[in-house]
């Protein structure tokens, strides 16, 4: 069964970029445009890896990570955050909240696949 990746980003092009790359690599990809929608999706669906942006409306990435880690069901789901190189503080915040790893934007497709493999069996 294909691994399912949930990409959470308010930017459609970013989501499509992630989805495009991962689908080509054989993953199944679901998309959510903010943290709240991601949580709604995860109520009913499974994700093997979650890739989330940090800056999003409604519920941002850090809040999403914190919410997921607080839920035993999602405590062990690898969560990758998308950050910009300029934002060490934000990255640290995400890590403290429970992010497994991070991807620095702009990422190249190979790197994305490597990183997803690094955190998911």
């Amino acid at each position: 069964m294909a691994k399912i990746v949930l990409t959470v980003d308010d930017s459609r092009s970013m989501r499509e970029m992630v989805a495009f790359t991962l689908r080509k690599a054989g993953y199944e990809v679901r998309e959510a445009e903010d943290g709240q929608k991601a949580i709604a999706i995860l109520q009913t669906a499974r994700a093997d890896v979650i890739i989330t942006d940090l800056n999003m409306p409604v519920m941002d990435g850090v809040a999403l990570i914190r919410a997921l880690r607080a839920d035993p069901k999602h405590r062990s789901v690898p969560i990758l955050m998308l950050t910009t190189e300029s934002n060490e503080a934000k990255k640290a915040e995400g890590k403290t909240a429970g992010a497994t790893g991070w991807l620095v934007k702009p990422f190249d497709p190979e790197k994305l696949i490597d990183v997803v493999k690094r955190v998911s069996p």
Partner: protein
Amino acid sequence: MNFDHLRTTYFEESAELLESAYSHLAALSENRADDDTVHALFRAIHSIKGGGGAFGFDRLVALAHVMETLLDLLRDGALAFDAQLTGLLLRGTDMLADLVAAERDGNTLPPGVEAELANAFGQAASKGGAPQEIKASVAALPSVPTEAASGWHIHFRPHPALFRNANEPLLLVRELRRMGPVTTVVDLSQLPTLDLLEPEDAYITWNFTLEAAVPRAKVEDVFEFVADDCDLAIVPIAEAVFAGDASEITEEHSPALVQQRAVSRTDTPAAQSVRVDVGKVDRLVNLVGELVINQAMLVQLGGQLPPDLCPGLIAGLETLSQHLRELQDGVMAIRTQPVRSVFARMPRLVRELTAQLGKEARLIITGEATEIDKNVVEQLADPLTHLLRNALDHGIEPPDTREAAGKPRVGTIHLSAEQRSSRIVIELNDDGRGIDRARVLDRAKERGLIAPDAVLTDTEIDELIFLPSFSTASVVSAVSGRGVGMDVVRRNIQALGGRIAVESRFGSGSRFLLSLPLTLAVMDGLVVSVGADSFILPISAIVESLRPAAADIQNLPDRRAVLCIRGGYVPLLPLHQRLGVRGAVTDFSRAIVVIVESDHGGRLGLVVDDLVGQQQVVVKSLDANYGPIDGIGGATILGDGRVALILDIPSLAAGGNVPPSDPQPAFETSASLH
């Protein structure tokens, strides 16, 4: 999906993001921003940058990056907004829009055009405590250590909390294996007895030997995410000596403690939306159109049955009609879009033009949430741009002139939109000098557009500016003199089924009124018969209809007929004459007069044989396979499958003063319609 598709998405999205950035900036400059405005602005710029990076649009990424740095400081309160910063951000957004457009169109902007702005952002940001960044963010990737060895010994001792972030040492082993042969020695000495074991803690220490000549950085990469949560030592094989205490040679990471900002976003949740390809919506609209025709056909057939034969059928048809109307409204609503997307482009135009013309003006926009058919929105951009250009170039006076005339130095232009029943009215008001009627009149006479001795009302004179090739600018300016006149604006608006009118007071300003149909595809129509033909009148234009008494009809000296109604006179236009239909009722007192209203509230009585009924009609184009016809706005298909022509009231009214003695012969080529 392919790469081009991704690019298209990016540019579509960037356009939306830029629009939202402009509207947030407008909110900031008008002091109606709240806490979220700056967050939303940050996200817009951030998203443009994020996607741009993926496509390697380095220049726009670099600019977005310095903007983002500044916005970050504003967001955190390290800097406060002021007019200067807002202006800087506006200019930055303008430049960003240009850079995005250049990438989209495959152009390259002159190198360095954005350098000055980028510097300005850097300086502004440095006041907020950010280090000045000189290089583009993408160029600032960490330099890659080049140390290499024939292989590596790796000592990896996870801290107990390693699992909390869902990291998994086994996956790291797997990743190391991909680089080359790995020997693993597991150290279980830290493993507690079962009763003391915390199932979610890490206890195992790993010693790997990787026999592959890879750079140290690649090995470090594997442990990138866990570096803070473990003791890690990476030693070249040649050295082959493990330090007794690995943690000594582990680089000490001491992440600055980040005080956690309370995340209390009160963003009103964005309206849930789905992106749908316009083609799909159009297909839906067409299908609904076909259904409307089908339904009309069924109703017509049903009407021929004796009512008691199948009573359920009639009731069923009525319900069907009702549902169909709702379905149609629903589908049409999908196509509507706020005019914001086109209004949002105007502030920039005003900024640029005022700078170019040495004038001062502020633009006030209201009603930008008014929704209108998407196609109409897109096609409004050109006419509105032209009107605004015109208002700034010809309307708003230079500041000194204004002052001398007792006006504020800064001119005001008000752009508004509102819905009035089934039409959208867009208004562009300026407090400039207004139309100089004497000059317009002179010019029109000079050009032979009107007779030298013509006496025109003020409204008629104002209307002259819409004549083809009429331009009052005695000097062709770089701004307005682009060979496009107001006639083109009028034609564009008419092509959208709209009307344009102007009201002006010399010395105090002009007001342009654009009235547009809510949607292009369907309208409520009155079916009228003239001879053997049926025509459709737009319900929205109809005031009333009546059968006139012979005594109420008078002839003017030029033999045009007028109808006396409630003490006033309305000119009559017999449609059979205007459209050359044979076999129609010619005795006015046996005909029906439909009073319609034209642009300026002027009334006209259309003489028809009979009223057939009222129905929704799907507007189809005649232009595609034939061409425009004077007096006709389009065609539709009636319930019996036949085509009926839809009358265009403004052009009927305009060309309508045909004296009865000079009827248009049926089916005669006629270009001279006046």
